[in-house]
């Protein structure tokens, strides 16, 4: 069997909550050795976040935390302890990469700023990500994905034009960052390998996320136009929307970008009260745009009694782009996601079997895999420090006896 592609990369991981742990999950999935540092006294946010197995909370029972942290070693260090820095620097001399997503200034306060790390390990790559980036008047502004999505302009362009804006679901910007982060980190490690030099990467989640709305920002910048929320409308397609189906809160998305797609849809619907005039008007995209609301109504009348899965297959077979609006139960039964083995079940000591999302790309020769469940709090403190980092029994005991390991 081929080695995993990132074997040999050693990561000292201070990341917490979503964006950071999602980033290091990719690294761990593809073979990097990731030692995740946690606080035992102040367990990280996601350890206390639902869902919990059977709804019963517990520090090791969060499915949220568990999904982002498979394949990682978990250790606990009391960062407020006088000897914490000594231990961390020991880990830094072991690592190729240090990752963190604290409020800027936190690592420096512990005496663990980039210069401190470089003094121990000149080639170290450090990856820091924060809401708004390092430096500037708002570097310490607290935040997290759900609110940052609004500053990134995404809330403003999500919703119905006649209603309040809504957030794109979840901590949306947290899920934009990690792919940019993995590319950047591995580019920096490539540079490290080629030149022997280290680097401190500084990623502002805001600045990264703006690449997901760049055309609108340019439009404002060069044309002075403000783009707002448009419901499900799209300038290049009609009809274009989500239509009701049989069952409770069941929907199907349908979009016609070409005349052929529209004609195929129309043939399937075969509306009885469809006269020559309307047919003529709807034969072009420009025409369909002028009667889009009528089309929506006609399509909804047609879809409302149909099974969404069957309808999707019928439409796709006829060449009409269509997709079921999958809810989270559907995702586990979706034939394509199942084919791609999107969810990998891992057996966790306290949760039992739970799903984590595998990476959305397959590597043909060196695939990744999620193999071990997220660590229990402090599960690998002794193993990682002694077996991976190489602390002697005496050194380890000394840190333990002094209470550095919580």
């Amino acid at each position: 069997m081929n080695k995993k592609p990132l074997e040999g990369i050693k990561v000292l991981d201070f990341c917490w909550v979503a964006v950071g742990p999602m980033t290091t999950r990719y690294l761990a999935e593809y073979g990097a050795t990731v030692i995740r540092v946690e606080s035992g006294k102040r367990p990280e946010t996601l350890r206390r976040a639902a869902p919990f197995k059977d709804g019963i909370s517990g520090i090791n029972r969060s499915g949220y935390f568990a999904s982002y942290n498979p394949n990682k070693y978990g250790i606990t260090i009391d960062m407020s302890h006088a000897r914490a820095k000594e231990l961390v620097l020991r880990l830094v001399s072991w690592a190729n990469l240090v990752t963190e997503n604290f409020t800027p200034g936190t690592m420096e306060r512990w005496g663990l700023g980039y210069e401190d790390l470089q003094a121990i390990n000149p080639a170290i790559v450090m990856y820091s990500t924060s809401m708004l980036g390092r430096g500037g008047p708002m570097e310490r502004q607290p935040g997290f994905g759900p609110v940052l999505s609004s500053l990134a302009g995404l809330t403003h362009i999500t919703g119905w034009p006649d209603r309040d804006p809504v957030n794109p679901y979840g901590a949306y910007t947290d899920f934009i960052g990690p792919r940019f982060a993995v590319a950047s980190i591995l580019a920096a490690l490539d540079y490290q390998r080629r030149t022997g030099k280290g680097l401190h990467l500084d990623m502002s989640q805001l600045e990264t996320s703006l690449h997901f709305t760049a055309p609108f920002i340019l439009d404002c910048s060069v044309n002075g136009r403000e783009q707002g929320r448009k419901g499900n409308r799209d300038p290049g397609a009609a009809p274009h929307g989500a239509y009701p189906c049989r069952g409770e809160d069941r929907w199907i998305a349908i979009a016609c970008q070409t005349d052929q797609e529209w004609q195929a849809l129309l043939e399937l619907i075969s509306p009885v009260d469809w006269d020559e005039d309307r047919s003529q008007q709807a034969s072009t995209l420009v025409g369909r745009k002028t009667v889009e609301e009528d089309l929506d109504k006609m399509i909804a009348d047609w879809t409302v009694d149909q099974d969404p899965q069957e309808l999707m297959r019928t439409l796709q077979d006829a060449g009409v782009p269509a997709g079921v609006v999958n809810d989270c139960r559907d995702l586990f039964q979706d034939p394509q996601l199942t084919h791609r083995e999107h969810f990998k079940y891992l057996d966790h000591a306290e949760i039992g079997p739970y799903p984590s999302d595998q990476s959305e790309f397959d590597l043909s020769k060196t695939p990744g895999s999620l193999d071990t469940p997220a660590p229990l709090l402090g599960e690998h403190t002794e193993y990682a420090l002694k077996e991976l980092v190489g602390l002697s029994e005496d050194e380890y005991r000394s840190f333990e006896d002094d209470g550095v390991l919580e």
Partner: protein
Amino acid sequence: MSNGDGAQELLLSPYRVLDLTGQGGLLCGKILADLGADVIQVEPPGGSAARNIGPFYQDDVHPEKSLFWWSYAANKRSITLNLETADGRDLLKRLVKSAHFLIESFPPGYMDGLSLGYTGLEAINPELVMVSITPFGSDGPYARWKAPDIVGMALGGFMYLTGDSDRPPLRVSIPHFHLHGAAAGAAGAMIAHTHRAITGEGQHVDVSCQQAVAKTLAHAPQSWDLEGVILKRMGVFRQTSGDSIIRTCWPCKDGYINYVLQGGSSGVAASTRTLLAWMDEEDMGDEFLNDVNWEELGYGQVRSEIMEKGVAPLIRFFATHTRQELVAASVERRILLFPVATQQDILDHPQLKARDYFQQLHHPELDTTVNYPGLFVKDRHGERMSLRRRPPLIGEHNREIYQDELGLTLEQVTILKESGAI
């Protein structure tokens, strides 16, 4: 500007990328280009169809003025090449010999049909990393299906969770389906590159945009699996678990802000206390909210009872302040509150200005300078990645690549042009 003198200075300077993607994959090459790679956009003669996507510079509907294209093609060079001709395929194969990456977003099977699938390209350059970005991945029951943005955002599970509960599910009003997949392509490309750099072995990276979207759903899939709860869309609220919802968007005096009323660690409880104290200062405090034990609540663990009683006092308070007042106070007092920003707000944002985020690129063909969204990552001294080229004109670098580099004669290039190969 060329990579000439500073060739080794950027993170990915030594590497060349052939970018054959259309609308659905441009961001992947852009990410590698910003990190320093030499990215050559390979366009069909006449230009990429992505150049037809609006809005347009000065509203002039023209393939050299698409702001969508500008957003995701800056930093790249452009050549034209017709894959449907034998000459075009021959040129591509010659370029593949010295390339490190090839990215494409054609429907599955298209490249294989031209003998340019991974097997064909591997025979030419075993070190090549080939990245395919498609809606569903290269095989499986949906692989050949059509998936424009809204279909992909639906099947990825995003739409069900976004929008008002009494209306149809929603997408974002700008396409994101392929962007998620394209960004994932850059991550996958660099993982494969790491293996290649050490072993000399290339491979194929097969990206599914549907999976990329499914990975944006936070803990919603786990909520179904572990608690049997299907999370729903709730408009300005967000359902965080079976019995817990939090409000995110709020109207204020002159627009909207985003504030998440909740407790738990990571400074959230402190932020909530600070806001409640501010309300007290202005005689708008609320006893019920003050009595909630925010410190003991877990992240996203706000029972609906708290929301029911807590929303009205906050709405009253926010309504007495402008967006600017609320944002300024949130910075001063450290409250987790951000504006629902418009594009102009973003262009004017003090933090982005302080970090020199927006960068000017000169467009000599338009005799103007354009303010572009800048780098998605920086290094401490801002030296190892860069925004350095305005987006290329159609085939702008044909001469550089075909004549100067591949050594074709003017006569040969003319034949290729006249025959429609380039």
